[in-house]
């Protein structure tokens, strides 16, 4: 057997192994996506088939929320860092749903699926907010949520432009009253809470959210 004749099958073998590995890897990625879709069927009941949210159920739009944020929130719901306050009616409803996603791999899979959904631009439901006054207030928020409300993963701040204003309003109220962001293990919630406390009243919240809406367009 010549040297070349020996080399050929060996490189062919390497090629075959490489091909197998590739197929295996892409198979796994496809598996995760399929798993994410499968898991999301449970979420669609409330958050809608395209993650567009449902006001009657007080479930916000989550479509295109960044993967890191969805993962972090699911973990918070599971550990009780969020949604375990006696007065957090909607959070208490979301919490058992988070428990249906077991283990980090599944959390990532469903979060990746949510992140890949097309973003929605929900219609306004709040009225009476003054975006001009809100703009001044938003200067503070921009430090974390970004000048265009796009969020900032380094500061664990979510985007504010892809979800409903009634939901954002409810969250600001929850942060302010201590229903969200007060648990010792909720570090990122604790950074947001003083910001909500800074908003004097409902009108101030409406103003800043009216400005956030202008960013959404």
């Amino acid at each position: 057997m010549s040297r070349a004749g020996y080399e050929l099958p060996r490189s062919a073998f390497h090629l075959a192994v490489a091909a197998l590995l590739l197929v295996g890897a892409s198979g796994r990625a496809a598996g995760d996506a399929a798993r994410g879709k499968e898991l999301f069927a449970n979420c669609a009941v409330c958050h809608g088939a395209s993650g567009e949210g449902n006001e009657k159920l007080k479930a916000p739009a989550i479509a295109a929320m960044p993967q890191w944020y969805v993962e972090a929130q699911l973990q918070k719901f599971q550990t009780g860092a969020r949604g375990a306050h006696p007065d957090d009616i909607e959070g208490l409803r979301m919490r058992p749903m988070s428990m249906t996603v077991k283990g980090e791999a599944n959390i990532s899979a469903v979060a990746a699926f949510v992140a890949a959904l097309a973003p929605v631009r929900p219609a306004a439901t709040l009225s009476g907010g003054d975006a001009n006054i809100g703009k001044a207030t938003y200067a503070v928020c921009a430090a974390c949520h970004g000048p265009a409300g796009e969020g900032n993963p380094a500061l664990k701040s979510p985007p504010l432009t892809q979800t409903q204003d009634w939901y954002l309003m409810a969250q600001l109220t929850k942060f302010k009253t201590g229903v969200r962001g007060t648990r010792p293990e909720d570090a990122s919630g604790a950074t947001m809470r003083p910001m909500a406390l800074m908003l004097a009243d409902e009108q101030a919240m409406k103003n800043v959210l009216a400005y956030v809406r202008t960013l959404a367009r």
Partner: protein
Amino acid sequence: MLTRYVEAASSYAQDIDGLITLITVLVGFWFLVAQAVLFGLIFRFRAKQGVKAQYISGEEKSQKRWVTIPHMLVLVCDVFIIVGAVRVWTDVKQTLPPADHTVRIVSQQWAWTFIQPGPDGKLDTEDDIKTIDELHVKEGATYHFQLLSRDVLHSFSVPAFRLKQDAVPGRLITGWFKPTRPGAYDIQCAEICGIGHGIMAARLFVETPEEHQKWMEKLSPVARAPTPQAEAEQENTPPAEGASAGAGAE
């Protein structure tokens, strides 16, 4: 007898088990007798060569006796069951023994909130202790519960107490229980209440008076902090906080 399968941890658990046993034995006895007669007759009047089938209308006295005599005997058994059932029902549901403590139970989709008085012994004061999906009670004390619902029908079910009570939106339903055995037990929702009904579970901790005192002292100053103990006890422990922080930083 049933305690071999489901622990009994309340003062009336034995009475309810007794009632279930009584019914099972009486009904079981008649069930076996009826099956024996049925199969005996099937065997005796099986198809035989050269014997024609007969149509029996069951109007003759000798035939009717097969129905009337067992019927009378079953009615006699019913009297025992009814007397037993009414006795237990009166004790458990119709009488309200004086309470040592009161706990408010708020059901909602899909969580149980338990509100207990803090050290001052009064509900609706600053030191109330609120816990989510976790109820701590003292062994040997009589509790009144005030059951509420925030949304739809639920049912507060504690198998170890042999207690099950529906929660109806708009109504405050009062009942009682007296825990008799320390331990950790299941609480579940026993009325279909939406997509999360199947996982609307909580834990019940029956504690000795000393343990209970310690728990109360630990919780009452921070009246609003529910303890994550119950989750830690569940099989599928959620990812640790470290994991959450890590995922957030990515």
